[in-house]
C-alpha cells in the first residue's frame, strides 16, 4: 500500500506490527506488544514451553494476574488469602510457579494491583494506543477502547506468544459502526452495545474488526468506551477499536506504566497519527442513531437476544434456538420483562466493574434498600477500583442498602470461583454473557447496565432506572 492511500486505524496498527507479510502459502506473522496472562488458560501453554525446553521470549512484555477462579469473599486487608476450592487453588499455585520460573511479573491475589485482567491493563497504563495486545480470553477486545488492536486467543496461541512474541494471523476485514447523535440521559454505553448486538446478531461481525465511530462514541469516557469494546466479541468480532483522542490521552497521563517526559511527548505525537484517515474505506458499515436508544435488557440465552427495557419478548416463530431460549428462561412470547421478580443482582465483570459503573449504581442505591429476598453482589473489577470506591464512600452506600461488597475478580460472571446462581434463579447482571449455565447450572441471566441492575436490586423486579430515580 502506498504512503498516500488513506488508511483505517486498524490498517495502521496491523501494518506497524507485521514481522512478515502473508504469502500465498503462509499467514502474516504479527508482533505482540503486550501479552496478558491469567490462571485458567495458561497452564497448558507453559507446559508446552517446558516440554520443548523454551523460555519466554519477552517477560517484560508479559503481565499476569489471577481473576477467574479466585474467590471474592470479603477478607481483612493483609490477611492471607485462602482458596477453599482445591482445584482452583492448584490452578493459582501453578500460575505462581510458572511466573516465578519464567520471570513474569504477577499481580497475585492479595496484591494491591490484582484485578480482572481487562480492568488492570488499562488502569496501570499498560494498555496504550497503537499497541497489539492479546490474552487467552475473548474479552481482550476491551483494550481496543484505547486504539489498540486487542483480541482473545486460545491456549496454543498463548504458548506461541510466550515463546516467540508473535502470532500467525489472517488479516481480518473491517466494519465501521457509526453511532450518530448522543445517548439520552439514563441510557448508557452498555445499552449502546447491547442494542448493536441485538441489531447485527451474535455472528454479525465474525471475521471483522469493528471501529466504533461517530459523535456518540467520541462523547464517551474511556470507561464507557471499554464497556462498548468489551462486548465486540459478543457480535463475533475479532476486536473492537476506538480512535485515540484527548479523552484517551487524559486518561493515560500519569498512569504507572504510561510513558513520561519526552517519551510521553513522542508517544503523543505518534498516537495522534493513528485515527482513520479521511476517505479510508471499510469493508462494511453499520449506522446506529444513539439518540433513539432506550435502556436495553436481554431476554434470552445469548447477548444478541436483547430488547428495550419496556419492550416485549418476541415470538420465536419456528426458530428452534429462540424456542429453546424462551423455554430455558421460563418466558412466553409477548410478555413484558418489566415488573418480573428477580432473585440475584450482580454488578461487576470486565464489562461494568469500574469506578464510573459503581458510581452510577450508587446513585440508585443511595437512600434506598435492597428489596427483601434479593441477593446483591457488588464486585469491583480490581483492588484499585475497590480502594477508590471506598475512598468515595461508595462501599458504605452499597452495604447500607443491604448489598454484598466483595473483593475483586470475575465472580458471578463465570461462576467458577464460588459465586454462582442456583438452578432456576433469575439474575440481572452487568456482565456480558447470558449463555445457558454461564452464571451457574440452570441459572437464568438478564444482561443490563449498572443502572438497570441497581434498579432491579432496590425494587426486586426488572425496572426502568429512569422511573426509579424519578
Amino acid at each position: 500500500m502506498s504512503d498516500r492511500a488513506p488508511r483505517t486505524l486498524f490498517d495502521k496498527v496491523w501494518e506497524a506490527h507485521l514481522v512478515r507479510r502473508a504469502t500465498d502459502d503462509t499467514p502474516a506473522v504479527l508482533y505482540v506488544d503486550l501479552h496478558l496472562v491469567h490462571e485458567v488458560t495458561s497452564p497448558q501453554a507453559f507446559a508446552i514451553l517446558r516440554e520443548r525446553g523454551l523460555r519466554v521470549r519477552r517477560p517484560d512484555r508479559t503481565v499476569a494476574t489471577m481473576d477467574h477462579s479466585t474467590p471474592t469473599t470479603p477478607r481483612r486487608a493483609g490477611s492471607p488469602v485462602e482458596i477453599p476450592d482445591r482445584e482452583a487453588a492448584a490452578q493459582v499455585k501453578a500460575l505462581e510457579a510458572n511466573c516465578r520460573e519464567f520471570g513474569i511479573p504477577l499481580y497475585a491475589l492479595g496484591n494491591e494491583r490484582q484485578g480482572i485482567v481487562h480492568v488492570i491493563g488499562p488502569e496501570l497504563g499498560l494498555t496504550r494506543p497503537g499497541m497489539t495486545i492479546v490474552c487467552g480470553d475473548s474479552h481482550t477486545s476491551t483494550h481496543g477502547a484505547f486504539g489498540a488492536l486487542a483480541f482473545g486467543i486460545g491456549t496454543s496461541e498463548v504458548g506461541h506468544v510466550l515463546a516467540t512474541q508473535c502470532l500467525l494471523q489472517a488479516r481480518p476485514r473491517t466494519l465501521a459502526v457509526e453511532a450518530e447523535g448522543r445517548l439520552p440521559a439514563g441510557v448508557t454505553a452498555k445499552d449502546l452495545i447491547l442494542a448493536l448486538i441485538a441489531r447485527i446478531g451474535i455472528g454479525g461481525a465474525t471475521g471483522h474488526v469493528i471501529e466504533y465511530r461517530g459523535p456518540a462514541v467520541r462523547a464517551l469516557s474511556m470507561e464507557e468506551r471499554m464497556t462498548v469494546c468489551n462486548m465486540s466479541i459478543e457480535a463475533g468480532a475479532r476486536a473492537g477499536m476506538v480512535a485515540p483522542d484527548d479523552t484517551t490521552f487524559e486518561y493515560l497521563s500519569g498512569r504507572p506504566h504510561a510513558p513520561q517526559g519526552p517519551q510521553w511527548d513522542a508517544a503523543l505525537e505518534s498516537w495522534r497519527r493513528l485515527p482513520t484517515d479521511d476517505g479510508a474505506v471499510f469493508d462494511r458499515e453499520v449506522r446506529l442513531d444513539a439518540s433513539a436508544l432506550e435502556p436495553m435488557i436481554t431476554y434470552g440465552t445469548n447477548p444478541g437476544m436483547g430488547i428495550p427495557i419496556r419492550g416485549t419478548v418476541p415470538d420465536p416463530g419456528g426458530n428452534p434456538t429462540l424456542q429453546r431460549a424462551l423455554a430455558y428462561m421460563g418466558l412466553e412470547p409477548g410478555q413484558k420483562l418489566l415488573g418480573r421478580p428477580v432473585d440475584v443482582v450482580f454488578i461487576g465483570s470486565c464489562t461494568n466493574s469500574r469506578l464510573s459503573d459503581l458510581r452510577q449504581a450508587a446513585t440508585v442505591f443511595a437512600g434506598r434498600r435492597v428489596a427483601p429476598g434479593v441477593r446483591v453482589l457488588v464486585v469491583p473489577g480490581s483492588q484499585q477500583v475497590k480502594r477508590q470506591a471506598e475512598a468515595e464512600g461508595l462501599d458504605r452506600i452499597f452495604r447500607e442498602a443491604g448489598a454484598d461488597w466483595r473483593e475483586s475478580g470475575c465472580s458471578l460472571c463465570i461462576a467458577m470461583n464460588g459465586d454462582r446462581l442456583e438452578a432456576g434463579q433469575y439474575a440481572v447482571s452487568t456482565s456480558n454473557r447470558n449463555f445457558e449455565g454461564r452464571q451457574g447450572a440452570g441459572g437464568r441471566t438478564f444482561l443490563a447496565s449498572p443502572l438497570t441492575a441497581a434498579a432491579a436490586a432496590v425494587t426486586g423486579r426488572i425496572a426502568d432506572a429512569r422511573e426509579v430515580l424519578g
Partner: protein
Amino acid sequence: MERLTTFTSTTVVFDADDVDTDQVIPARFLKGTARSGWGAHLFADRRYDAEGRPRPEFPLNHPAAQAARVLVAGRNFGCGSSREHAVWALQGFGFRAVVAPSFADIFRGNALKNGLLPVVVDEAVHGRLVSAPGSPVTVDLEAQKLSLADGTEAGFVIDPFARYCLLNGIDELQFLLGQEEAIAAHERRADSPIGGSTS
C-alpha cells in the same frame, strides 16, 4: 501433532445454531491444568441431568454416537469464550472433525491448532447431513472434499497453511520459532514508545 489426511466415520448430529463454548464445556470444569481428560465434560449440561445421569435424548448419548468421529453442528458453532478446552473436550470424546455451515473465529483457530478439522459446508450439504444422522462420511483433507453416503461430494475451503500443517503433522509453533531473524529485526526497528516496553 497427529497427521490428518483421509478418514471415514459415522456422524453425530447436534444441529443447534450458536452453540457457545460455555455449552461445549461449562466453566466450572475449567480448573484443570492438563490437556487431557476433558472428554467426560463435553456438553456436560446438555448431556447429563442435574444428578449426572445421561439424558437418553441427547445425540451424544446414543450408543451409535460412541464410535463417531465427525460432529455435524449448526451455524456459528463455538461462539463466545476463547477456551481451547472446548476443542480438547471434543477431541477427548473422539471427534476429529466438526462439520457446520459456519464457525466462530477463535474456535476455528483453536480447532486447527489441535488437529480438529472445522469443515464449512453450504446449507444444502448441511441439510443432507442433518437428515441422515449416523451415516458414514469420508473427510479428505488432501483433496479438501467431503463424501456423503448418498454420493454427494462437497469441496471445502481451508487455510492453505493450516492444511499443510495438518497434513504433515507440523505445528505452527515450529514455524514461528523459525522466524527468529525477522522477529529480532522487528524488535530492533520497533521497540519505540508506541509499542513501548511495558516495564
